[in-house]
């Protein structure tokens, strides 16, 4: 039995904003998955828009801290993966519109 649903975890992570583009990580489509178990352990699977992102570890830390703020969370693991490679089609419609993607 999961302590939190994927949607609840995504909602918590959506407080993390990429300061370069000004959108949160969830609406950018950078968060691939988030699961929790009944003991309060969470695993977040995410990517970044570029491998050369100089804020790589900082963003990972922000995601971890955003989830840790939820009640009864004991442990958070954030894994950054490069497959599938992120592209703009993974972002929400309003992000694409704001960036000028037709």
């Amino acid at each position: 039995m999961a302590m939190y649903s994927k949607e609840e975890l995504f909602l918590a992570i959506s407080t993390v904003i990429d300061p370069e583009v000004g959108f949160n990580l969830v609406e950018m489509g950078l968060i691939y998955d988030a699961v929790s178990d009944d003991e309060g352990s969470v695993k977040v699977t995410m990517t970044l828009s570029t491998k050369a992102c100089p804020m790589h570890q900082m963003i990972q830390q922000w995601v971890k801290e955003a989830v840790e703020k939820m009640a009864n969370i004991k442990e958070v693991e954030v894994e950054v993966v490069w497959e599938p490679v992120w592209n703009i089609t993974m972002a929400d419609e309003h992000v694409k519109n704001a960036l000028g993607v037709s």
Partner: protein
Amino acid sequence: MNAISQEFAPPFKLIAPFFILGSLFYLLSTLLLFAFDASDLFYTDSHVISFVHIFLLGFVMMTIFGAMAQLVPVVLEVGHFAVELFYAIWPLLLTGTLLMAGGFILSPKLLPYGGLIVLISLMIFVGETLLTIKRVKEFTVVMSSVLIANTFLFFGIIFGLVMALGYAGQMSVDIYSLLRAHAYLVIGGYVSITIMGLSVILLPMFGLSHGFSLTSLYCALYMMSFAVIFVVIASLFDLDFLLYIGCVLSILSQMIYFYQVYTIYKTRVRKENDIYAKSLIFAYLSLVGALFLESLFILMSYEPFLISGAWLLFFGFFGFMITGHIYKIIPFLVWFERFSPLVGKEKVPMLADMLPKRSSEAQFLFSSIGVFLVAFALLSQNNIALSAGASFLVVGALAFVRSVLYMINFKK
């Protein structure tokens, strides 16, 4: 996996002097333009050489070195060997550049001293970068470009010091044949290859480009490397045919690189034309203009084509490439140091909020008009257009200095 840890990021107080001094040298170089006589300008004129050193050492190198303190870990994916060495680089580069620039105009006796101090400064940079590269386990094309560029820089500064000794009369050398080798090693070998390598990291990162091939970059890097080697050998052994091949190769290399940038531009998803995008578009258009004029020079040997083309390459391409990236790099570094610890605790500004909108736009407008006017003046050997262009550039440079100081001092 790429992981740039926070401890890899150097403190901003280490990098800030590079950017402040770089912007002041940019301003100083625009003032030196008033000393030019467009109707009788040649590339070995002492005012031209002084201007070139103020611009290339004081602005281009100073700013690139500051940026590399931040970008080397990003590109190489390892921490610096000894980032503290950067505290020694900028005072040496500042002193050496002023002595050299003064030496060309006032007294050649200053040149060996300035040259030696610059040599020490650049050797510290090259040594630190090469020792950092030694930590890399697996090389990508971009990492290779950093290695190649720094190797060329190493030889370029050796040639430069020999020339400085020759100018001062302390050594008997053929300065004009060394000049070509020195210029190609530093401008083609270091500055151009560094820009090629870094741009395939930075342009996609800021433009969110994906799915482009790097084949053109490989070709451009190989061709530029061979071009530099050919020109150096040709200059040392007086081989005109090899010199011609080297010059043509370097132009073709830049054309192929331009195509690489075009593929990145076409696949970008951030379409906004902010100051960064506008600066880069102007930079690459200047590159095209420079390549056109340099090609005409090779065909017709008319020196104003060479000087005007070099102008577009320096102030148009290098200048706007660097000022454009400054509007990304300084806000990031300031934000990283001043605001990132506050994330999640209070509202923090976005990077775009840290840009001085009016002074950055003014810098772009005045500088771009100035670059165009001076290019026209050098081509038509027109002193009125030169003074007009220089005036626009001074205003643009003042706006740039203001923008740099605004971003560095940004508080909520």
